[in-house]
């Protein structure tokens, strides 16, 4: 049903990554040009952007505002049809939104306020007809446990803090077991301390579950921390400036010489 490389069974994320590096990519973006059209004018968001995301990657799209990184993510999610070029997920062209690519948005209003936390997480599973009510609730409870929010299963979203809402959003995305998890600056609206703890948690979840992540951010530090591969985009319109490795950095290496050197290199690439 899918290309051979993506089906390889691996025991841990590292091993899976090693296997995936030689296999065909999970997500291919080919010469993607995105445009926003209104009656008066056309704005080009990205210009012929290409990149490959391998199974198990933590792929980061990094750039200043106006580089089209969020538009790229929306296009991969299927919300924004390409002007030209194509997006292939396991060889299949993406034409519309679907539950195999779940998005975690930056805004807190992505959780329906009329559903309790547990129902919120289960909602996607039921709505996309992945499983029945009982099984959905079971999987939702499990997902809530992995993000440490079991105690708040019966609360309503408005009773949670911003960080907890984002945790629920991540849990709902993970529960659906998407082929790619898409995150659009998910921690940008949080305070610095909460952001750091959620970044840590995201890495831990990745270690545990080994999903494939496409992550949009404008923070160089966050890109180095979260990603193992970083695509640098230049603004107006977005074009690929560089693609870098970042797998060696984790929370412990923040502030180290190598980390700072890479940070400065990215800064130079983006702003000079």
């Amino acid at each position, binding site marked *: 049903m899918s290309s051979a490389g993506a089906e390889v069974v691996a025991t841990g994320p590292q091993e899976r990554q090693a296997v995936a590096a030689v296999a065909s990519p999970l997500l291919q973006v080919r010469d993607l040009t995105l445009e926003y059209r209104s009656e008066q004018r056309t704005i080009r968001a990205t210009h012929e952007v290409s990149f490959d995301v391998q199974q198990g990657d933590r792929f980061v799209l990094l750039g200043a505002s106006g580089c089209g990184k969020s538009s790229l993510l929306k296009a991969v999610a299927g919300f924004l049809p390409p002007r030209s070029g194509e997006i292939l997920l396991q060889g299949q062209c993406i034409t519309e939104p679907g539950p195999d690519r779940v998005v975690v948005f930056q*805004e807190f209003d992505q959780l*329906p306020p009329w559903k309790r936390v547990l129902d919120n997480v289960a909602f*996607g599973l039921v709505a*996309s007809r992945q499983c029945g009510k009982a099984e959905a609730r079971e999987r939702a409870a499990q997902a809530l446990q992995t993000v440490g929010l079991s105690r708040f299963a019966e609360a309503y979203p408005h009773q949670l803090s911003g960080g907890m809402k984002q945790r629920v959003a991540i849990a709902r995305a993970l529960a659906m077991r998407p082929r790619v998890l898409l995150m659009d600056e998910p921690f940008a609206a949080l305070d610095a301390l909460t952001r750091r703890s959620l970044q840590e948690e995201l890495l831990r979840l990745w270690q545990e579950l080994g999903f494939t992540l496409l992550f949009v951010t404008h923070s160089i530090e966050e890109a180095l921390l979260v990603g193992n591969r970083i695509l640098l985009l230049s603004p107006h319109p977005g074009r690929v400036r560089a693609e870098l490795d970042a797998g060696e950095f984790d929370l412990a290496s923040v502030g180290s010489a190598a980390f700072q050197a890479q940070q400065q290199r990215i800064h130079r690439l983006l702003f000079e």
Partner: protein
Amino acid sequence: MSYVHPRPEFERELAPLPALAEPVPPSAARRLWQRDGVRQVVVLVLIAIAWEVAARWAGNDLLLPSFTQAAQAWWDDLLNGELLARTAASLSLLLQGYALGAALALVMSALAVATRTGRDVLVTLTSLFNPLPAIALLPLALLWFGLGQGSLVFVLVHAVLWPLALSTLSGFQGVPETLRMAGRNYGLRGLRYVGLILVPSALPAILSGLRIGWAFAWRTLIAAELFFGASSGRGGLGWYIFQSRNELMTARVFAGLATVVLIGWLVERFVFDTIERLTVRRWGVQR
């Protein structure tokens, strides 16, 4: 200035906090006064007293019967079943018209949010018909549907449909973009998308439309019954009021009016307030 010398750093051990004093519970009278219902009843009692005083001062039972006379008339007709029968007749009609109008409004706004043509149709129709008083259509309705319930249901639908469709559509249009995308992300589309995302999210607007529609429908019905209630067989509350006036039983006119007001208030307070408390307030989307 304190900036001359660098200030030394220091660390401090925090002493445990003293226990907080127990809050003093408010007195029974104060707690009673804090309940909305109690305050509303007090206002009603004051109005009744003012009415009683004014009626005794005027001293003309035909023009302004006193509160006690009106209450007596209301109680008598309640006991002999007349008021109940009239109210039942009015309410059954009202519910038919209201349900039909609300269903139509929901369908039309769902179509309007799905397609641009649907929206153009709804916006045009609403701007044409919303300012038209439903009661003005009654002569036409009588011509079309005859002297029966059909005519009344027709004007009731007209009274409910437009204001409700208008507020439902504006509620649909106000659904946050992120929530729309999240819904489509789950693969929702068509009716399931409307039912699972748009309607719950637009519920504050829909509920306020339902309240307005309810008031419009109630007014329209009473007015229509005043107009021709007797000919439709058994008249409702409007006819009761009209008949009592013809028989110069002003106390019963007031009893009829009080019943109209009372039912409106009961529905507001027990039906709509309850729905609101169980949904939008609980979800934190409306305070």
